């Protein structure tokens, strides 16, 4: 590198970049992606991320099974997806290149750690010849850097052992892409100082590697052009970058503050839900109690016990745990106590794809209990929306005295986006209203407490232990409406089954109506729930900018459905329902409203891309004759 001195290469401005970091699970790709994301967030870009990691903690190094990736989309305007296809792929070893190259946009840029392309690694990945030399990368812009070697050299005089120095090579990669894509340097340097405080040699090595990567960009003839993505014109406010699980945890804390009663979480570790347990366990100063229970049944049981005692009882899990909790959720339906059950869905059945996303638990949430056991269901639409959805779930549970299922998914859980932090004073309050006195006069003229005497919304009182004069016994055995005494009477049971259904149906009057985004007069409406919101929004914008019309109806409430939904759906010629399952909401809509809804499905463990949805909508628009 003697012949090139530092040059000031021209920087071209672009409206967005989709960058994918791929490497071995030991290479620190999640952290590298996360740092790039944070620097971009602080710079003011809009962004969305898609972390993907193997199910094994340490799959054999250098193999395809061990590849861990992190995709980030940065943009100068409002975006809603992590990007259909990366424009830049950073591959730290041959396995990463082999596994992710097919995702890259034609003509995209590949940045590789040349040192990792040795015979051994090529063989482990399954390459028969070296892709850096055999023409496999023709048509791409290729940047090769001896990252391992240059990192070791940069650390030479720092007293860091070569093997340890090697571990900093991800910071070399980060330095290089930071230069190429004009990211500010300071946030990363500051972060290294804070993160590794007290471990001076690690700080020194990471900083040296980062600087070396940056300098390599400045001095080497890379052949790739330097790009700049300007800050996005987002709504004014204070922003932070947040992922779904953190937003969900904070939403639960916020709900507890708004309700003025403590939060109790019972949980058993499971991917991708564990981070909610981890996050809530940290915030004891909010009075949060967390119990890592012996199993999922214990977890939901404890949450129910806490709710019976007047706390906000929450349990978090993923599909396999949902199956275990079903009986207890049924008990909560029968007891009519508030309980929030959070399912961060992943690929199933069984262990399925534990680290990949899917949204195939909707019908389980609807019907996965014995007997007639209806309950409200809400679903989050974006990482930051998990915050508000958590508050809504708690509101419904507490104000309507019912278990509520909140559906998130693995993609929302781990993806992040900039979030305009809400003013906490503007958050709605949640009405708790514990019962404090008798509510009935019996035949003898005495004032007594009837635990199942309902108000006009058919909601029963929440009388918590410790309240004098309201002692009562409740259980899962059928009870007489009003008195709550055990009753096996046929007519009473029939009435109770209908009452339980009616009181959940009535909630439709306490939620917002369904709204159309886009053109309400379009002939085609897309109906969605959960994390498909982002890709559909992006698809709608593309269709609109091509001069066509599309209506988008996104449902946060899946049970009960918004009161106006049936009429709204019938006003469209065609209804399309994209889902990450084999058509569960579509089935519900057809059954409920007799509309000829068409299902578009994807169950590959990956979220929809906007392009896939554009195509699906396009077909529908074509059939209506609206496309010209």
């Amino acid at each position, binding site marked *: 590198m003697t012949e090139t001195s530092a040059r000031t290469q021209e920087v071209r401005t672009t409206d967005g970049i989709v960058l994918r970091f791929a490497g071995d699970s030991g290479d620190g790709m999640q952290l590298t992606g996360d740092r790039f994301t944070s620097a971009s967030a602080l710079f003011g870009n809009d962004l969305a991320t898609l972390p993907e990691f193997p199910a094994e903690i340490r799959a054999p190094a250098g193999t395809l099974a061990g590849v861990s990736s992190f995709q980030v989309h940065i943009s100068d305007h409002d975006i809603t997806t992590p990007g259909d296809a990366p424009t830049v792929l950073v591959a730290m070893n041959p396995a990463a290149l082999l596994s992710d190259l097919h995702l890259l946009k034609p003509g995209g840029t590949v940045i590789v750690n040349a040192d990792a392309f040795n015979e051994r690694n090529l063989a482990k990945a399954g390459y028969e010849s070296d892709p850096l030399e055999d023409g496999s990368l023709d048509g791409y812009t290729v940047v090769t850097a001896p990252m391992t070697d240059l990192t070791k050299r940069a650390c030479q005089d720092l007293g860091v052992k070569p093997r340890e120095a090697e571990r900093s090579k991800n910071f070399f990669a980060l330095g290089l892409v930071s230069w190429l894509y004009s990211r500010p340097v300071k946030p990363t340097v500051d972060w290294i100082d804070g993160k590794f405080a007290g471990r001076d040699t690690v700080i020194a090595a990471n900083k040296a590697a980062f600087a070396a990567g940056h300098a390599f960009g400045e001095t080497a003839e890379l052949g790739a052009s330097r790009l700049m993505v300007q800050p996005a014109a987002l709504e004014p406010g204070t922003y932070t*970058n947040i992922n779904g699980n953190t937003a969900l945890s904070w939403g639960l804390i916020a709900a507890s503050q708004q309700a003025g009663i403590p939060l109790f979480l019972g949980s058993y570790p499971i991917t991708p839900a564990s981070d909610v347990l981890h996050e809530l366990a940290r915030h*004891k*100063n909010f009075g949060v109690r967390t119990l890592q229970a012996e199993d999922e049944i214990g977890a939901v*049981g404890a949450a*129910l*016990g806490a709710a019976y*005692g007047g706390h906000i009882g929450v349990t978090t899990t993923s599909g396999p745990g949902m199956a275990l909790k079903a009986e207890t959720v049924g008990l909560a339906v029968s007891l009519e106590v508030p309980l929030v059950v959070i399912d961060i869905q992943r690929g199933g059945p069984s262990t399925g794809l534990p680290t990949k996303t899917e949204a195939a638990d909707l019908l389980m949430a609807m019907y996965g209990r014995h007997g007639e056991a209806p309950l409200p269901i809400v679903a989050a639409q974006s990482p930051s929306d998990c915050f508000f959805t958590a508050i809504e779930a708690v509101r419904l549970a507490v104000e309507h005295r019912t278990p509520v299922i909140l559906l998130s998914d693995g993609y929302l859980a781990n993806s992040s986006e900039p979030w305009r932090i809400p003013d906490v004073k503007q958050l709605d309050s949640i009405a708790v209203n514990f019962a404090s006195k008798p509510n009935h006069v019996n035949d003898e003229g005495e004032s007594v407490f009837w635990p199942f005497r309902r108000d006009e919304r058919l909601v029963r009182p929440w009388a918590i232990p410790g309240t004098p004069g309201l*002692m009562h016994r*409740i259980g899962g055995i059928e009870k007489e409406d009003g008195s709550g005494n055990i009753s096996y009477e046929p007519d009473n049971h029939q009435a109770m089954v209908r009452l339980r259904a009616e009181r959940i149906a009535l909630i439709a009057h306490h939620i917002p109506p369904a709204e159309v985004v886009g053109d309400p007069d379009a002939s085609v409406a897309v109906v969605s729930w959960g994390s498909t919101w982002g890709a559909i929004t992006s698809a709608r914008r593309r269709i609109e900018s091509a001069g066509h019309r599309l209506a988008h109806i996104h449902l946060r409430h899946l049970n009960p459905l918004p009161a106006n939904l049936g009429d709204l759906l019938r006003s469209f010629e065609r209804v399309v329902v994209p889902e990450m399952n084999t058509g569960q909401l579509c089935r519900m809509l057809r059954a409920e409203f007799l509309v000829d809804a068409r299902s578009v499905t994807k169950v590959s463990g990956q979220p929809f891309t906007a392009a896939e949805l554009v195509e699906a909508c396009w077909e529908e628009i074509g059939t209506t004759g609206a496309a010209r």
Partner: protein
Amino acid sequence: MTDVPVTTRKDWATDQEVRWCPGCGDYSILTAVQLLMPELEVRREDTVFVSGIGCAARFPYYMNTYGLHAIHGRSPAVATGLAMARGDLHVWVVGGDGDMMSIGGNHLIHALRRNVNLNILLFNNQIYGLTKGQYSPTSERGKVTKSTPHGSVEQPFNAISLALGAEASFVARTHDMDRGHMQEMFRRAHDHPGAAFVEVFQNCNVFNDGAFAALTKRDARDSMLIDLCHGKPVRFGADGEFGVVMDGGRPRVVSVADVGADALVVHDETDPDPSVAFALSRLANTNDVPTPIGVFRAVERSEYGSAVTSQIAASQSKAGPGDLHKLLHSRPTWQVA
């Protein structure tokens, strides 16, 4: 608590018709509890009975307190959440041998291990009563029931050994024929901070009649029940003529005349090492040999709910009470003008 109103048994009983079979041992346990409650000086509204499913688990309906009749096996879990959330309550858990040692075995051992402030009463009738007479995890080998027409081939649990193995801090056994002894055990359980486990030998006169008769009928008790008393030699028989010695780490029933009173093991329920208590629990694995009752173990250990509460208090005094605005701004932020 001096301002607790004076109550009588009637105040603690509900108007619900008791639905156990006539002659069921559960009646005498209910009576013992209802008579004891006024003596405990607690308020009815601060008392909660939690149960699972089974004949035993109907108990809460008959107590004029707060009551939660949950689902089969899960009462220790439900009660754990309640006791963690509400340290001010007195939480009792009632269930049968199937409820708490079969379907709910996992929750039981973890509630004991965590030392949650619960009084757990296991009504052991060595049978599934409510489902009409299948063998249970405490039924003896060879037991002929509807589901074991050729006799059970399973090794039963010894409830006391199981509780001790689960790190329980309070473990006791009593039986439904001795109200005074039951009340003493229940009182001790109530006074114990942390999880208290009491096994009650209970007669199911319909599906397993006389299961404990060899031990508990009036004329057998002296020679068949070994009443453990803290600080006293382990001794039984009408004239204290029998006793227990530890012999190479194993307990053995002896005639006091043969070994001398000084050789008898002196019961220490507070021994931090549960080995001797465990050894005593192994004395009897069938109902036809002398069987210890009383408090096997009563040691002090940090109670779970209060430990959690003190972590909350500590973090509040360190970080200040939770401030939502601060939390939402706790990660790097930036301004968009």
